[in-house]
């Protein structure tokens, strides 16, 4: 069997991305009696527990720019971001009618309140606000988080009617460890040779992991990385940038393409953080819930939705990302009305200023259609980077 080409893989991923009926997940569920699907919103949930329950974790990243929001707008004022309204639209139009549960991670007040709205709108569906600790000591935040995860584990056992054993959890941790390694390998390839794995392609390939069974996604990642490395593509004279602020409501694909067209190599980002949230492998020995808790507390990504207890560390993750990827600047791209990203932004910008790293900022929505201003802004940024570099 020959390995598919990058364009074949990307075409398949694009189909998955555009399918707002989640056909693949529906088919997965229909293939065997008793299968369950659990939806989740950004930023992070321990998908390992859902997998260990024999269920399919399904990432819901809003409706993107292909969904016409009609009902969802009736639930939200104009000054609230778009992801909750398009998620409600997906729900009330029946696109999520096969989903057996919905998880609303602790990220901001809008998603938090959406958890309660979901209970009102879909009382027959299991829905849970998934709380995580913002204190990172083992005995305090760790114990609380283990309690929350065990409660969730018990809820899933009730839904599935079967016990989630430690052995099953260890197996799921191993499967997700492998998946994260592959996602990280793809990110490394993109950072080293961004012309071989453009951000717009890498985005689609990683995003496919939100709807596919993890094992299938790992195969797809392997295929894409191998294909990308074996294909020859022209090297462009682009500037390397890190984009940040896109951890919840996702940018339209055109926005990522526009950044590339305007001369950017996106060498790091915070899209779909769930795929990379835990840094390194979660150990397989010992109590799996404890191990997941430890990984969350001590080896997880930084983002605006988290509290940073150490002031010295504030924003350093961006400085490190710039150094590690050889980036020449940072683009702050935040969703309009996004409290976490927009409140965090001035602090992160101060850190970059101190580190002498250039940056620009703009806002977007998942259905932003006008890319010309973004192209112009990003293009000017790239030009100025080149000028500074020359100086």
């Amino acid at each position, binding site marked *: 069997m020959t390995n598919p080409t990058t364009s074949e893989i990307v075409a398949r991923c694009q189909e998955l991305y555009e399918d707002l009926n989640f056909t693949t997940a529906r088919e997965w569920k229909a293939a065997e009696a008793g299968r369950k699907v659990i939806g989740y919103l950004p930023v992070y949930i321990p998908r390992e527990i859902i997998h260990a329950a024999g269920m399919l974790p399904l990432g819901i990243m809003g409706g993107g720019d292909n969904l016409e929001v009609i009902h969802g707008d009736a*639930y939200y004022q104009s000054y609230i971001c778009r992801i909750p309204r398009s998620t409600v639209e997906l729900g009330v139009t029946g696109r999520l009618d096969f989903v057996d549960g919905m998880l609303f991670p602790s990220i901001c*007040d809008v998603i938090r309140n959406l958890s309660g709205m979901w209970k009102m709108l879909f009382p027959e569906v299991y829905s849970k606000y998934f709380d995580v600790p913002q204190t990172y000591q083992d*005995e305090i935040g760790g114990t609380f988080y283990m*309690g929350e995860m065990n409660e969730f584990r018990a809820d899933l056992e009730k839904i599935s009617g079967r016990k989630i054993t430690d052995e099953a959890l260890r197996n799921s941790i191993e499967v997700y460890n492998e998946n994260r390694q592959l996602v990280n390998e793809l990110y490394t390839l993109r950072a080293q040779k961004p012309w071989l794995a453009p951000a717009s392609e890498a985005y689609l390939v990683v995003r496919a992991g939100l709807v596919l069974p993890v094992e299938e996604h790992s195969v797809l990642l392997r295929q894409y990385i191998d294909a990308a490395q074996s294909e020859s593509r022209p090297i462009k004279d682009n500037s390397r940038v890190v984009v940040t602020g896109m951890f919840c409501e996702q940018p339209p694909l055109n926005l990522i393409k526009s950044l590339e067209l305007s001369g950017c190599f996106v060498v790091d980002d915070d899209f779909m953080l769930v795929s990379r949230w835990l840094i390194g492998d979660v150990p397989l020995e010992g109590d799996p819930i404890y191990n997941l808790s430890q990984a969350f507390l001590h080896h997880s990504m930084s983002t605006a939705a988290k509290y940073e207890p150490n002031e010295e560390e504030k924003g350093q993750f961006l400085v490190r990302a710039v150094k590690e990827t050889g980036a020449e600047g940072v683009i702050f791209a*935040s969703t309009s009305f996004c*409290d976490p990203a*927009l409140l965090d932004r001035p602090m992160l910008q101060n850190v970059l200023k101190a580190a002498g790293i250039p940056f620009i900022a703009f806002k977007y929505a998942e259905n932003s259609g006008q890319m010309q201003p973004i192209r112009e802004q990003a293009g000017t940024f790239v030009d100025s980077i080149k000028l500074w570099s020359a100086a």
Partner: protein
Amino acid sequence: MRKPLLKASPADVEKDASMIKQKQMMTAHYDRLTNAKENGDKVASTFVPGNLNELLMCFDLVNNLPEVNAIQSGLRKQSGAYIMEAERAGHSEDVCTYVKSDIGMMMKGNIGPNGKKLPDPDVLLLSYTGCFTFLKWFELLREQYKCPTIFLQTPYVADGKVTPNMIQYMVKQLKENVIPVLEEVSGVKFDIDRLREYLGKSAKAEDDLVYILQSGKHVRSPIDAYFGGIYYIGPIFGAFRGTDDAIDYYRFLRDEVDDRMLKGLGPVTPDGPMGEEKYRLVVEGPPNYTSFRQFWKMFYEEGATVVASSYTKVGGTYDYGFRHDPDRPLETLAEYCLGVYTNRSLPSRIDMLSDYINEYQADGLLINSIKSCNSFSAGQLLIMREVEKRTGKPAAFIETDLVDPRYFSAANVKNRLESYFQMVEQKRSGAGAAA
């Protein structure tokens, strides 16, 4: 018997005697705050929801509440300039205006309502309760003040019930993270009996607060539980919970309310005693502060009294039975934080508002949706529909902001209110015709 009404400055504003008393308390507090450094007092900044005043008092710390400072700036019409200042410095137009007012005020010299400079805090007690913005707000302040920052996370009560895991988590944080740093900053050793004493005092004042807020159940309410309510909650939500001053104030206020009830009088408005009570409303959401008096006038001129509000529960849902319990000092602080209105799930909020409409015999629900407060605002349109469906009473929606004058459109708000009152009338006449 105390005289219920006093003339206060400015000359055309009428105030209850209790309002005057409260003003004296607030003045004394701001004087203590602004003189803290000279007097050797240490200052802790913290938030209204999740305010642990009793605990701070155990360490002789003076409580500074940036939210209240922003409200004061709003009432004094200074917040607009502060917000612009913060936006010029790079803060987004989309985020909480309390934060920007506070930061703008800091950039302009941090002058408090008494005209004196507010001291830099010695410690930031980041009580992360019911509002995501708090988390970032104090990260922003920490960047400026470079002082110790204590983090206390209150888990969100998403399923309507407080679990042992939540309580244990909070108590551990109090023991391991909060109290040791407060001891270090203040140099005062923690004395749990001192905390018990303050908690006992809190409970006494809380009893009277509940009596006052529930007086709105009387048909011809002696209070306005939204605009007047802002004054009623001031001391207990601020720096006075756990003090003798708070006990005295709420006893005094209770007498005043009793007196009005006996005489069949309504609330006191800035233009004097309220006329006929034509409409009884429940209001959800915070008020606008930059045009507070004008906003209130739109209600009392039409004979609308707010008999219950959710905003007066952001610093504690005492009317649902919670009292600080000196016998369980740390657990009770945890339960207090967990129970505040903005930490309650959307279904719980709907239950509360529907109960208020029924128990307070209200004509309907009015939602004042605040542009920059997602904690309150996200989901309010569903709340409106659901409460309407459950109670059969009309609901309406207006939009303003906390302290950003750019988002208060008087004509718009007035139009909507007038339409709403007409809707209430129609509903009444429809009900009358059906009977």
